[in-house]
């Protein structure tokens, strides 16, 4: 298991609750969503270590506004998707992570297969919104409606963006694009 800071640590670190226990439901939410959110950040930022910090920032934001957020899973994905595609924030998170990791024992991550890595690199070269849509579609396995909810945009916009992103990636990677029925839900 990834030694991620848990909700109790969040609560004890002097958040808005002044050291009170984590709000009800946050701990389960955190443990349930953590890996997926880190993956989303990784896919969009390209940095494994920065993804940890970006996801942590998103969860901290959710923690502080826990009582106001109706759909935290969508909300935290929106936050991390925005953070990850922001070059400034991504670099800042990476710098923080590198600084932090220098004091720790060396770590190594299992690399992805080269062709998979190449695909994600191509995704990150897309316009920000297209990259977000692709990551949410294939990595998070969300439907068009769910992507629209996460990104707070219209479903038609998501469809169009997804179409453009697929076409661009297929052209770049010399792949074929099949007609997908995006209304039927997730990609799998």
């Amino acid at each position, binding site marked *: 298991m990834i030694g991620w800071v848990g909700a109790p640590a969040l609560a004890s670190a002097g958040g808005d609750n002044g050291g009170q226990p984590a709000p009800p439901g946050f701990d389960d939410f955190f443990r349930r969503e953590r890996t997926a959110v880190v993956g989303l950040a990784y896919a969009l930022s390209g940095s494994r270590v920065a993804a940890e910090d970006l996801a942590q920032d998103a969860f901290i934001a959710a923690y502080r506004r826990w009582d106001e957020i109706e759909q935290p899973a969508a909300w935290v994905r929106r936050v991390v998707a925005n953070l990850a595609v922001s070059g400034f924030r991504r670099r800042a998170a990476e710098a923080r992570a590198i600084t932090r990791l220098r004091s720790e024992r060396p770590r190594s991550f299992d690399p992805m297969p080269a062709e998979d890595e190449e695909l994600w690199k191509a995704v990150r070269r897309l316009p920000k919104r297209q990259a977000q849509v692709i990551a949410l579609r294939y990595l998070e396995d969300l439907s068009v409606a769910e992507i629209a909810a996460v990104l707070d945009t219209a479903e038609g916009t998501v469809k169009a963006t997804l179409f453009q992103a697929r076409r661009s990636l297929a052209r770049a990677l010399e*792949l074929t694009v099949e007609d997908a029925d995006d209304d039927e839900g997730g990609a799998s």
Partner: protein
Amino acid sequence: MSPVSFDERARAAAASLRRVVEQAPPITLPSPVGPRRAWWPFVVLGVAAAIAALVTAVNADDGSQAPAPAPTTTSMATTTSAATTTTTTTTVARGPATAVLTLRGPGLPDGIPEVVRDAPIEPTGSFRFAPVPLSLEGDYDITVTTPRGTATRTVPVVAGESITERAPPAPTKTEPVTLSVAVTVEGNRSPITLEGRTLVDEPQPPSAGTEGTPAPPPDEMSPSEEVSPSDDGLSTGEVAWGVVLFVGLALFGLGGGLVLSARSPLCQAGSNSTGSASGPRNA
């Protein structure tokens, strides 16, 4: 060989990325979460400090413009005297126009029983008296008069035992003394402190006299010593410093705010994103 579809490649890449994330070795975050890093206090502090600096510059009286009125220490033939700065405070009524200083004491030049100085009171509440020559220690009666009130204090000017090593030798028996007179004027709303400084006798050049020979008293109220009303206003340098301080501190505050706000994901997420999203299927 059939062409590979994008969907297949994308699903495979997604699965690969998930494996990397899930199989990652433990990560230890020594101090992962700190207290909320609010950025706006830095902006507020910076702006407040800038305003304070500007107000300070505006309210500064002419002390900064006066020619080095710092207490001067000098040594005489066999004794050592330390110049004394004494402040007397009293309350008089608010009055316009002119403040009058009358000084009587043992150290005034021969033939001059008292020194009378007047200075205009500026709208900012400041005034400045021209230098007063003092040569000996003793008690001096200082009377500050405004059109609506008079305050009198006896101010001791004493010889100190300490010796300032860097003090220049006394060229004459005219002992430089600095006096400060502070007058608090009560207004209708809040007290305003009027402060007169620069009651100093500039040291005479060595050639002005010999030890034991009193130097000729300085010209009383010579034109060069009189204070023109414009002297109480802000100089160009003060205004420039105020502007520089204001801009610098404001930039400091804004810069700190920007740096810290970069840490806040809420700035990126936007306030309108709260609670409006429907959850994904695994929410």
